[in-house]
Structures are given as structure tokens and as C-alpha cells.
């Protein structure tokens, strides 16, 4: 089955990004496809390559980058939400791309399910 994922909160402050990541990991392990992860609202903050969490904590941004690269998951950051919050190509982590809201609607149409993770 094809899943689309929407993440509305940034890393660390809320559990949304953690829950979404572990959901995607489990879905991939079961042989499902993650068609796209769309980062909206403060969710765009998951894509900055400048984070440096404490050594004994998980690295939320790197985890997403790795999943994008290893499983070809399309990680799309909303351009309008990103500009509001200071995410641009210059601080974008590997594996993410910045694009328009149409990418969210598109995955809503194409995927079998769209799951929202927020506050």
C-alpha cells in the first residue's frame, strides 16, 4: 500500500516527527511504500542541516535524511512555510527538497492513505 505522510510540527518540541518517523520505518519494513513525507507548518524545521542535538539523544533530521537516501522516500518541505521560518536551500539537509503545496495535494490523490502527525 502507498502511504502519504504530513508532519506539522518541528523536531524535539513535539513528538509528531518521532511518531511519523517510526511509523514510516515500520511501514517500510512491512513492504509498504512511503510515497512522500510532506513537511508543513513548523514541520519544515525538521529539514535544517544545522541541528546538533546532544550526543545521547536521537538526531531527528539525520534520521529523516538517511531514510530518504536509503529508501528513496521523497521528503518535501513546503516552500511558503519554509520561507516564513527560515528554511532555504542553504541550510537544507540532504535528502530533502523544497517545493509547493501542490505536492501535498498530489500525494493525497495518489497515495492510498494520508496520515497526519501534528500537535
Amino acid at each position, binding site marked *: 500500500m502507498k502511504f502519504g505522510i*504530513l508532519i*506539522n510540527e518541528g523536531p524535539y518540541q513535539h513528538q509528531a516527527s518521532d511518531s511519523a518517523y517510526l511509523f514510516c520505518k515500520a511501514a517500510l519494513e512491512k513492504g509498504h511504500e512511503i510515497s512522500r513525507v510532506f513537511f*508543513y*507548518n513548523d514541520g519544515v524545521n525538521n529539514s535544517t542541516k544545522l541541528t546538533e542535538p546532544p550526543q545521547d539523544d536521537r538526531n531527528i533530521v539525520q534520521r529523516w535524511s538517511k531514510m530518504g537516501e536509503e529508501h528513496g522516500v521523497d521528503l518535501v518541505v513546503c516552500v*511558503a*512555510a519554509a520561507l516564513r521560518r527560515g528554511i532555504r536551500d542553504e541550510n537544507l539537509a540532504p535528502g530533502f527538497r523544497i517545493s*509547493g*503545496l*501542490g505536492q*501535498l*495535494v*498530489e500525494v*493525497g*490523490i495518489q497515495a492510498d492513505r*494520508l496520515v*497526519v502527525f*501534528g500537535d
Partner: protein
Amino acid sequence: MSEEGGIKKFMFVNRKAPYGTVYALESLEVVLITAAFDQDVSLAFLDDGVYQLKKGQQTKGIETKNFSPTFRALDGYDIEKLYVEREAMEERGLTEADLLVDVIVLSRVEMGELMEQQDVVLSC
């Protein structure tokens, strides 16, 4: 659940008040984009979400853009299905006359049944 000719039913569920958080504004931005994809779009207003439609918003004092006129423009995008939960209005002392646009008022049971018919339910 219907998928006639590739058209899906998208519902935007609004449960949050405007201005205290950005969700109402950024959700509306998704609605406008979705209109361009020729899908079956509806908006549901529950809980504090009904406050988004309140007439007379004047945001100058908080130095923030008043985005409520956009609800009036939805018509021009062929988005006409705005559903409001009756109980949510009543608990907040609001009536249809308080709202910026024409809406379809539903009981909670009707709202729940409508949700079940959707393909994609978006909430912010």
C-alpha cells in the same frame, strides 16, 4: 469513500481558533491549492474552529494580517461546502448570523457520518 474518475473527497477539519496559532491560516492556504486540482473539497468547522468564521475580525491591534476575508473568496474557487457543527456554535454563543459566509449547519451525528465518507482528512 468514492473515487469516481480519479476524484477524491478531501475534507479539511478545522478545530482551532485563528491567530493564537497559525494552523487556521496555513490550512486555508492548502485549501486554495487543492481547489486547483479539481477534487471534491469540503471544510468542516468543529470546536474552536468555528471562531475562524466569526464576522468583524480586526487584527490591527495585534499587528497580524486578517485572513478571514479569504473565506469569502472560496466561492470563487468553487469551494462551497463549508460545514459547521451545531453544538460547537452553541457552546460558544454563536449563530449562523455571526458567521462571515453561508455554511451548512450539521448535527454532530451528521458531521461524523460525513467524515466517514472522505478519502483524505486533513487537519493542522
